[in-house]
């Protein structure tokens, strides 16, 4: 029998619902992004995000079911992002999920947001194990080893800023518009690597650190400004991006060798980064590694990925009761 998961994601500034069949087939997805609103403030304002989530939650639910031409009775289980994320935002999706699970008597399946990002790949191509997942986003930089479905071993993480966070801060200092990540990526592709920046945390561990590199860019920018030198933003963006991509790919390739893994997936918002995609594609071809990077629409926050992860969580018996609470932070599990 087919399994249909209704998934809800509201951990940051996207209100999204999706119906996923058997963990791999997207029946319908609706994403309502608040990005344009938050752009006015140079970043996500949590209270505004919460306000917009409640205004939109039933509209998105209605459109998702309509698009799928399905009713709640056709749904097998409800998957919900319970964390990590902004508490006020998470709570809207969570309360909606619990209410639906209660009135329709459906199993409630809690999904960790990062598990969702990883399983976005299953919507593109059936994930093969063992695999290594490089998770890169505004809140996360992690290398995750997966021996089998729904088993997560975090082998490396950032010691300070997440990679997306470093992008946003660098963007702000050099005067690039919000959202910083994609715009710095664009500039980097025009520029050349001329600025002398350090390769951050270049050691044998699988951990990352981006605050030093971020500070180096900011200091360089201010020093040049004080000296009255003209800064080439494109070249600075390119130099910064090259260092980020170099260390991400270096540690990822090292992890693949160390764990004897031939499957690599990339997940999270920063996997939309062109520089990272190009370099990983090149290296994986050279090393004969199967690389999967989801389409851009699955890289940013969406409920389709929660539905894909939710299916596998459902299959191994993950359930939550009506006391399920939102969590701002939580270990990937």
């Amino acid at each position, binding site marked *: 029998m087919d399994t249909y998961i209704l998934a809800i994601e509201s951990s940051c500034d996207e209100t999204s619902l999706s119906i996923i069949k058997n963990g791999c087939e997207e029946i319908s997805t609706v994403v309502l992004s608040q990005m344009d609103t938050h752009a*006015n*403030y140079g970043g996500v*304002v949590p*209270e*505004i995000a*919460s*306000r917009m989530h*409640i*205004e939109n*939650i*039933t*509209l998105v*639910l*209605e459109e998702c079911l309509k698009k799928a031409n399905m009713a*709640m009775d056709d749904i097998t289980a409800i998957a919900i992002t319970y964390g990590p994320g902004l*508490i*006020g935002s998470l*709570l*809207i999706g*969570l*309360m*909606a999920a*619990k*209410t*639906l699970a*209660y*009135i*329709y008597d459906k199993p409630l399946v809690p999904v960790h947001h990062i598990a969702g990002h990883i399983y976005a790949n299953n919507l593109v191509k059936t994930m093969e194990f063992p695999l290594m997942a490089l998770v890169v986003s505004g809140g996360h930089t992690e290398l995750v080893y997966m021996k089998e479905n729904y088993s997560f071993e975090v082998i490396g993480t950032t010691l300070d800023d997440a990679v997306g966070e470093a992008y946003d801060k660098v963007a702000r200092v050099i005067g690039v518009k919000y959202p910083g990540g994609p715009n710095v990526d664009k500039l980097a592709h025009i520029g050349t690597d001329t600025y002398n920046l350090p390769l951050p945390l270049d050691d044998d561990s699988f951990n990352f650190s981006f605050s030093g590199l971020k500070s180096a860019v900011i200091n360089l920018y201010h020093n040049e400004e004080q000296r009255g030198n003209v800064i080439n933003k494109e070249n600075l963006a390119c130099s910064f991006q090259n260092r980020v991509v170099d260390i991400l790919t270096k540690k990822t390739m090292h992890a693949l060798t160390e764990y004897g893994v031939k499957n690599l997936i990339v997940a999270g918002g920063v996997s939309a980064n062109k520089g990272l995609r190009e370099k990983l594609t090149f290296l994986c071809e050279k090393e004969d590694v199967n690389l999967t990077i989801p389409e851009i629409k699955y890289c940013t926050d969406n409920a389709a990925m929660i539905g894909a992860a939710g299916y596998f969580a459902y299959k191994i018996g993950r359930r939550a*009761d*009506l*006391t*399920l*609470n*939102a969590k701002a932070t939580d270990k990937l599990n």
Partner: protein
Amino acid sequence: MRSLFINTSTKKLIIGIVEDDKVLYEYSDTNSNELSSKIMPIIDEAFTKTNLKPVDIDTIFVTNGPGSFTGIRIGLTIAKVMAWSLKMKVVPVSSLELMVSGNYNSDYILPLMDARRNNVFGALYDRNLNPIINDSFINYEDMINRANDMVKDYTIVSHEFDFEEPKYDIVKVIKKHINDKGINPHELNPNYLKMTEAEENLSKKEGE
């Protein structure tokens, strides 16, 4: 006629099931940080104890603020999703009105909620729950002055400030609003009475 009553906007969490003017179930306790964990099991208990199901409810009455922003949203999300799913009538009511619905000794009642920095959410109601001064986000002294201008004698009720403790009568509130038209669940949203700080700062900046 059966009603489900939900209040998560004030310091008191209320879940009630009312049939005509008979209370079949009422939960009433101090609202805590654990609201998001606690509330659905209480709603489940309400239905189990009354031998009813959500589909047996005709109308949901839910407070839509003012009050704690997160608190309001928790109750309203439940009401919104339930009303949309089961095509129920849903009626939003003021949390300040709920605070004055109990039995008091005066003809006029002034409910107050702390809104920080010497501001309050306040209003003035008569004993039939008619607003004399509409729900407002207002400086504390201004609220009192406005009330003094309107009526001679009134009782102030508040959970946070040192006045009489508010008393709730959900049957009275339901009776008052029983003929209200109800609202499209998509449009059932909090009445915050207050912009977010970020919006205030932005509009100040744009005004300069």
